[in-house]
């Protein structure tokens, strides 16, 4: 993976930049000692590391605007960062960049249950948004698995999803307004407590733009009343194709579960060894969760059971109480941790039409043999969002490269099947160079022109999302005025 060469003229201006930034930031918000900037050298894609020139931790929209304006005047690239949990390298710095972290901006600005919204500063973590409203039995729906740590800023940047988005949608479906600071320091207010912001749907294009269009400092989010209850069932099948058909039949029958999770045999075995959740040793395991009052849950589960029975499951396990429900989820929720115990792994998130599932799983199995690396599959079956975990040994020379090559082939397969490279993690640097498999140059050019409008100097997170050769001319920025 290649990153642009640091701009020597930018590095030469470090002292001047520090002097200017120190006029608008508190001393503890400006980090320029190389021993300390190393803390920002990577995000959750730890294979790639590069310490930034500086890191800043502003406390207000005003400070963010000042920082961006100064960096814009100095021609310095800025990499926005939420909590640094990106699996795609979205917050990976270059040596000539300033990391702009919003972690200190984590206040709740307003909770409004009558209008069912919450307004927060975007450094606030996903789970603590729900934490701010759960006393009134409300919650914020998008639930990425990093929700304990990940920030709303990053959720908006990557348009994060989660296990429950089959029913509640992803970030973009729950975002009503933002305060966005452009690279030149302009502050925009878009949307708010009303539905459908006026004019063009800028909110829609900002969400998922991976910090390339502006820095979102505040957000208005939709909150929902918690359902009366929720209950999972577990079912095991001897054939992943049959499991896929069962999912399809449940959906066709008009039942809309809040989550449908799928695990294959390698994943079941690894998590079982780690978490002892009591999962059956079978080819495919489904966890399906439904919501409502007790009678409503019972009604839906009866329908699901009838449909599952037609597909001859090797196991069908209902949760009689909260403890059993917890055990059903235990293995799934520890899947990534379990993999981490036994191996290094790379987690992909390509999405496929659910009808292609059997073909894609079969091909991944074949490729696993060809590349000589094991794969465990866990994925959101309702929406086709795969999560193949490729196991490798970081200490073995060449293994990471083999793993990356294998991963790229899986993602190309997802695109061939009618799907896409990434369903919820984002492109970042990880999938950047595969974008031409998804889109033609003319399609990418249309996207680049959007960045041209928001960030004409191409200073915000410039080396991400698009292949470097595609953005080269735009990134060759003029030197700042001396």
């Amino acid at each position, binding site marked *: 993976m290649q990153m642009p060469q640091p701009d020597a003229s930018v590095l030469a201006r470090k002292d001047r930049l520090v002097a200017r930034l120190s006029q608008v930031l508190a001393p503890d918000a400006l980090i320029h000692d190389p021993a300390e900037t190393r803390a920002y050298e990577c995000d959750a894609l730890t294979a790639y590391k590069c310490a930034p020139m500086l890191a800043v931790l502003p406390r207000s929209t005003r400070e963010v605007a000042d920082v961006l304006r100064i960096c814009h005047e100095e021609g310095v690239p800025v990499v926005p960062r939420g909590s640094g949990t990106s699996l795609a390298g979205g917050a990976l710095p270059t040596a000539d960049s300033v990391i702009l972290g919003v972690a200190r901006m984590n206040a709740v600005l307003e909770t409004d249950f009558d209008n069912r919204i919450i307004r927060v500063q975007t450094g606030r973590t996903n789970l603590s948004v729900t934490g701010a409203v759960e006393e009134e039995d409300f919650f914020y729906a998008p639930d990425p698995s990093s929700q304990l740590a990940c920030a709303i800023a990053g959720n908006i940047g990557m348009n994060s999803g989660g296990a429950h988005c089959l029913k509640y949608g992803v970030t973009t479906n729950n975002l009503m307004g933002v305060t966005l600071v452009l690279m030149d320091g*302009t502050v925009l207010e878009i949307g708010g407590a009303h539905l459908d912001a006026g004019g063009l749907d800028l909110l829609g294009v900002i969400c998922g733009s991976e910090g390339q269009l502006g820095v979102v400092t505040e957000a208005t989010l939709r909150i929902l009343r918690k359902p009366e209850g929720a209950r999972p069932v577990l079912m095991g099948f001897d054939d992943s194709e049959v499991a896929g058909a069962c999912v399809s039949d449940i959906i066709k029958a008009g039942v809309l579960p809040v989550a449908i999770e799928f695990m294959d045999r390698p994943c079941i075995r690894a998590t079982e060894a780690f978490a002892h959740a009591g999962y059956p040793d079978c080819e495919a395991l489904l966890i399906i969760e439904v919501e409502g009052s007790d009678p409503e849950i019972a009604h839906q589960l009866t329908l699901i059971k009838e449909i599952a029975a037609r597909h001859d499951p090797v196991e069908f396990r209902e949760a009689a109480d909260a403890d059993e429900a917890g055990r059903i989820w235990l293995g799934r929720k520890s899947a990534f941790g379990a993999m981490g115990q036994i191996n290094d792994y790379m987690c992909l998130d390509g999405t496929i*039409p659910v009808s292609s599932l059997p073909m894609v799983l079969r091909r991944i199995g074949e490729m696993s043999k060809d590349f000589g690396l094991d794969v465990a599959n866990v994925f959101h079956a309702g929406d086709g969002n795969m999560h193949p975990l490729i196991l490798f040994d970081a200490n073995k020379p060449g293994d990471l490269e083999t793993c990356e090559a294998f991963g790229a082939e899986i993602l190309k397969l997802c695109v061939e099947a009618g799907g896409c490279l990434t*369903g919820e993690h984002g492109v970042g640097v990880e999938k950047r160079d595969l974008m031409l498999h998804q889109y033609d140059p003319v399609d990418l050019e249309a996207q680049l022109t959007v960045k041209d409008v928001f960030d004409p100097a191409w200073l915000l997170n410039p080396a991400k999302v698009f292949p470097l050769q595609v953005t080269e001319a735009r990134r060759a920025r003029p030197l700042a005025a001396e």
Partner: protein
Amino acid sequence: MMTPKDEAELGEAVRQAKAPLAIRGGGTRLTGLAGEALSVSGLSGITLYEPGALTMVAQAGTPLAEVEAALAAENQRLAFEPMDHRGLLGTEGVPTIGGVFAANVSGPRRVQAGAARDFLLGVRYIDGMGQAIKNGGRVMKNVTGYDLVKLMAGSWGTLGVLSEVSFKVLPRPETEATLRVAVDGAAAAVRALSVALGSPFEVSGAAYDPDQGAALLRIEGFAPSVSYRAGRLSALLGASGAVELVEDAATSAALWAALRDVAPFRGQSGDVWRLSCKPSQAPELAARLKAEALLFDWGGGLIWARVPEGTDLRARAGSYDGHATLMRAAPETRARLGMFQPQPAPLAAIAAGLRAKFDPRGIFNPGLMG
């Protein structure tokens, strides 16, 4: 009127254009645009439908009725419930699926299920240079590159001409019912709607019709669940006013179709405005409008207002969290006030910048959105 038969012809028509084009699907939602009409009605047909994956792909000019019939045959539907503008606007023609998404048309279920834009998964469109561009795809989760799909939804043809759309569909519930809560005035109505929307009982419609003096709440799902939730909501709303349950699904459906299409305003004279606002602000805002007729949807977050011809409703509304769209008026009123609410300068600059990139010659519905 130009009616190209496929995407290549559509691209060629745009490339050859020397003057502004009036972009249209069935011509039922927009009237009085300047320029030669360019219709996508010739690009028609469902190209892919996978009920088990809840997805459909269709040419932009496919009649909405054809889409809805195909979905109904599989017991599915467009959950965002697009309105039919013909009755309100007095237009004729065949609404198209492309028009629905280009105008981001969402009905009462928007409060629960989301807007049209939330269901749009992928687009193909012709840009202002006549190039065919694709974005998104046909899977429900997709963060591969920028989401131009959302940008195209609700851009009313000003950024590109849609040629194909792929979208998410949902199962049609087994049955539905409506609760009619007698309320005295908009403030009491919005309070009652807010209580219902803040409950765990999954209300899929929350409207207030002043003529009926009733707040209206829709519940959909499996029969036992609808019955259970209707009971719980009735108890919850008992303090707000007398509650009547409309149990017959067909009666309930007809009631919501009328609300969706703003049927009470049909054939009534005057201009029609549509305001998006913060629900709790709706009662005071509505009072300031001094309208001849009002209809509230989305728990109060959507106000339909009928006012005398030529009224500058935005001036009456003053400052609030939201915006007002002029849906029906004489051409001179529309020219004077604009269909869409003017935006603050920095936002308008971004929008103008995007239009200049997507349509550098300024030929797609010029002036419509700024």
